[in-house]
Structures are given as structure tokens and as C-alpha cells.
């Protein structure tokens, strides 16, 4: 079985930041592997270590800078990586679900995986839709928001738990080939070992342009346009306690006593 795992480099925004146009200023951003994808990578690598998967391929959509992040996936055990990028992808402020679906579908066509793992969502634009959209595009079965995965190799079925709201899980059987979107908490993502980091240096990261994937600019045409970005107005009417730690703690303690919950 071959597993394709999608990874995304996402930006985290500093506590204090400024917006420039429709973007957060570059100097306020810190890049990292998307949290959900970290769990998807771990799940893929465990499938290899436990036997069913022969190869784990990581795929990302991102500029050259993203190689640092995708190398983290390689250091944790993915065998090789594909990095999709093209000059035309630098233009839009928002890569919408349709665009990402088209790009990833082209890689699926080349790689022919049996199982695709994605994170449930990305921590930056938070669309939460690419995995299921991709499944429809490539004709795979799917399950969204998976927080337990038990793969039955003989049957070719993934027994999964889907994490619904309110502490309820849905138990679902999904026939492969399939796309599963992976929820945080499904496993404990490993830290890359020094050996893993060393090995990752010699693993392949294949760059792919639109032309390499047999796509033209039509694949990234979007009917969505990010027209503004702003800091939400604070709705806070909280009473903020002033003073040093001991003074603020004393005021807080007073409130707790007034409310009768602590003495």
C-alpha cells in the first residue's frame, strides 16, 4: 500500500502584528508545519512501521521556503516528497479549495496512492475542505475528522472513528482507496530524531510546476477573492485587574469569594 500525506507550511501570527493590504506583515509571521498535518504524517509513518504501507510520500503546495517544513515530514519518516509550485501561484492572496484540489489531484494521478491522509484543516486559512473535495475529484471514498484509524489489510477497509461534536464519535468503515482527514489527538506525533534529520537531507523533494503536472493556468482560476483583512473589533467589556501579580491575584481572589465559589 502506498500512502500519500498532504502537508502544508502555515504561518503563525505574533501577538502584536500589523496588516499590510490583505496580508499580515511578513515580519510578524513564523512558519511551521500545520498542526493537523503533523498528526497525519505520524499516522502515515505508523502505517509503514506497522507493515501495511510500503511507501509514504509527502506532498505540499508551497514556495521554496516550504522545503524546510516538508523536510520535517521526511525527518519523521516519510520516504520522499513532492513540492508543487509555480510563479502563477504567487499572485492570489487565497488559494481556494478548488485550486488545491486540482493541484493535488494531478499528483494523485501520478503517484496512484491507495490512501491519502490530510489534516482536518490548516491553522491559517482554516477552510477544512480540501481533503473531502479531493476525494470527490479523484473518485476515492473518504471520511472527515478521523480520530482513530484501524486498517484491515486483508479486507482493504479502514475502520475509523469520526469525532463529532459533543463527545460523540461515529464508527465508520471506509473502503480503500480513500482520503481520510486526520484530527489532532489521533496519535502522539514524534519529534524528528537526529538520525532522521540527517537522513532527510538526502531524501528527494521533487519540484513540480503546473506544466509538469499537465495543468495550465485554468487549474488555478478562482471565483473567490480575498478583498480585505482587518483586526476584529474587540468586543471585550471585561474588567481588567491592574497591578503586579500579587495585586491582580488579590483582586481575582476577591471576586471568587464574592461569587461564593472559593473561600
Amino acid at each position, binding site marked *: 500500500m502506498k500512502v500519500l500525506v498532504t502537508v502544508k507550511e502555515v*504561518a*503563525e*501570527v505574533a*501577538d*502584536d502584528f500589523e496588516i499590510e493590504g490583505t496580508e*499580515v506583515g511578513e515580519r510578524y509571521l513564523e512558519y511551521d508545519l500545520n498542526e493537523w498535518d503533523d498528526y497525519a504524517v505520524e499516522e502515515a509513518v505508523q502505517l509503514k512501521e506497522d507493515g501495511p504501507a510500503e511507501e509514504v510520500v509527502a506532498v505540499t503546495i508551497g514556495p521554496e521556503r516550504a522545503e524546510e517544513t516538508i523536510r520535517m515530514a521526511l525527518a519523521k519518516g516519510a520516504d520522499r516528497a513532492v513540492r508543487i509550485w509555480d510563479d502563477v501561484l504567487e499572485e492570489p492572496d487565497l488559494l*481556494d*479549495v*478548488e485550486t488545491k*484540489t486540482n493541484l493535488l489531484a494531478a499528483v494523485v494521478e501520478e503517484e496512484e496512492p491507495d490512501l491519502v491522509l490530510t489534516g482536518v484543516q490548516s*491553522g*491559517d486559512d*482554516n*477552510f*477544512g*475542505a*480540501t481533503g473531502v473535495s479531493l476525494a470527490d475529484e479523484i473518485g476515492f*471514498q*473518504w*471520511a*472527515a475528522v478521523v480520530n482513530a484509524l484501524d486498517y484491515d489489510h486483508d479486507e482493504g477497509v479502514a475502520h475509523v472513528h469520526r*469525532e*463529532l*461534536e459533543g*463527545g460523540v*464519535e*461515529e*464508527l*465508520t*468503515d*471506509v*473502503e480503500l482507496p480513500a482520503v481520510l482527514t486526520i484530527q*489532532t*489527538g489521533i496519535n*502522539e506525533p514524534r519529534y524528528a530524531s537526529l538520525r532522521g534529520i540527517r537522513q532527510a537531507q538526502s531524501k528527494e523533494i521533487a519540484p513540480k510546476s503546473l506544466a509538469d503536472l499537465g495543468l495550465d493556468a485554468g487549474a488555478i482560476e478562482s*471565483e*473567490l477573492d*480575498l*478583498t480585505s*483583512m*482587518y*483586526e*476584529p473589533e*474587540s*468586543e*471585550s467589556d471585561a*474588567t*481588567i*485587574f491592574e497591578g503586579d*501579580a500579587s495585586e*491582580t*491575584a488579590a483582586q*481575582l*481572589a476577591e*471576586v*471568587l469569594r464574592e*461569587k*461564593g*465559589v*472559593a473561600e
Partner: protein
Amino acid sequence: MSSDVLAVAEHRRGVLRDVSYELISAGELLADATGGDLHVAIIGGDTEAFADDLNRKGVDYVHTVSEGEEFNHDVHVQAVEALHAEIDPEALVMANSVNGLDYAPAVANSLDLPLVTDAVGLEYDGDLTVTREMYGSKVETTVEVSGDQYAVTFRGGEWPAAEGVGDAEIGEFDVDIDTDTGSSVTGFEEVGGGDVDISEADFIVSIGRGIEEEDNLPLIEDLVEATDATLASSRPIVDSGWLPKNRQVGQSGKVVTPDVYLAIGISGAVQHVAGMKGSDTIIAINTDPNAPIFDIADYGIVGDLFDVVPELIEEFS
């Protein structure tokens, strides 16, 4: 194409979920703007009873598809596609829920509709503009949709629940559904049971990412002991395995409504807030004065929990 709006309701284990009524409110606003009718679809479950309940003010049609008891994404995809072909609506609106995100992206891709998820606001002036958040609620954005037809998923809790009784036309929508599709729901499981039920607590001390390391947890446990509180947490603490699932407050965990909820090192992501906003008094300790938790807090300390909590323990020893 019509200027109509098609909203897909959501149910689970015999009850309509609240977001269904909110979709009706949002859908009515949108239908008023487009000048079209509001259609509501209910797929599976006790469709007859659900349809009566969904016939609220502003709804013009309720379409029932009586197939299966529980949500199944293959059934939903086929039914919504067939309804979309019949009604040919300008707007297709769905819930930004776990199940919503299990079928909406497939429908949008299959029908070649632009998809905007997790909408928290909308404006319409001939074109739809959707407000949505990015970077964990640190910024809001507006996304303009230029397509004639589009799909949007709405975040729960952002629109009021539709009320009243409408005069909708209710009817079963006939559609052939292939149920042999390679995905089947085999059951449900309740999680988060165990030694304590945090939803019963009067005073909750809840801890988030700000605690940084598992080794720092005893500090909070000392506070819990000194104040006789109940310990809870946000999701990352449970994901890391530092506390069991039955301590998790939020959308996928427990909903709590204590007299006092003391949030320590919790930024206040929307999924967390969904589980604790009904608390009588909310108090937050956080280093980031812009953290969204302060938007719903009654009292706050902008400061480092590692400075404040030891002082607070001192107050009660």
C-alpha cells in the same frame, strides 16, 4: 438558474441540531437579498416530524428525502446534488459542522461551485461577500464570490435560531439513491466518561496551551486543591495526553455552565468558547491582551500565569 437559496438541515440520533434553525435565519437573510425563495432540505431520520419543525418563519419549501436513519455522506451528496439540479439555486448553504464538512466539499466540487467555509457574516449587493476568520480568530477577512452559483458553510452560533411557524410547502423529494458506495456507519460511541463529570461543577479552573509543559500541571492542580475547584482544559492539553478526554471543554468535548469559569492560558478559540460561553462568570488569565478569550470574559488579568497562579494559591492557603 433561480435566485433561490437551498439550505440543508442537520440531524443526529433523532433530533435536529441547533445549527439547522440558524441556517434558516441566515438563509432567510440571503433569500431576502437575492429575491428568491428559501428551500430547506432534510435528508434521513424522521423526516416527517423534522419537516414540521423546520417549517419556521421565512421558509417557503421543505423537501424531505427519506433515506436512512443517520447521516451518511454518500446519501447526502446524491440527494443534495439532485435537489440542486431541480431547484437550480443561486446559493447552497450548509452547516460548518463535522458532518457538514464531510459532504459539502464533495458536493461543491462535483457541482463545480465555489466553496466558502466557516462563514461568520455575509453581505449581499448582487454579489455575495462572506466574512470569515483566519489565524485562529486573530484577523477577519472578507471573501467576495464572483460566481453566479456558490456554496457556503455557516459557523454554528453566529446567527439566531429561526422561530415561529411558517407556511412552507412540505413535500417528499423523489430521488434514486445508490447506497452501495463503500462507506458505512456502524455505530456511535460516547467518549469522555469516567471519574468526573465537569458539566456538573460550580467552579472550574481550566488550563490551556499556556501551561507549556506537562511538568507544569502540578501548579494548576495546587490551585484546584486550594480553591476546591474542578479541573478542566482546552483541547491541546487532552490531545497531548496530559489530561483525560473527560476534562475537555469545547465543541468536541463537554459543554459546561459553572458559576465561575477561570480560564488560564487559554486563548479562546471558537471551538473552546462553544463549550463554556454559558458560564455565569468568566475570568481569564492570559499574556496576550488581544486573545479572544477577553472578548467573552467578565474579569481578566493580562499577565503570566506562572507569576499570577502562585500568588492566587497563596490567597487561598
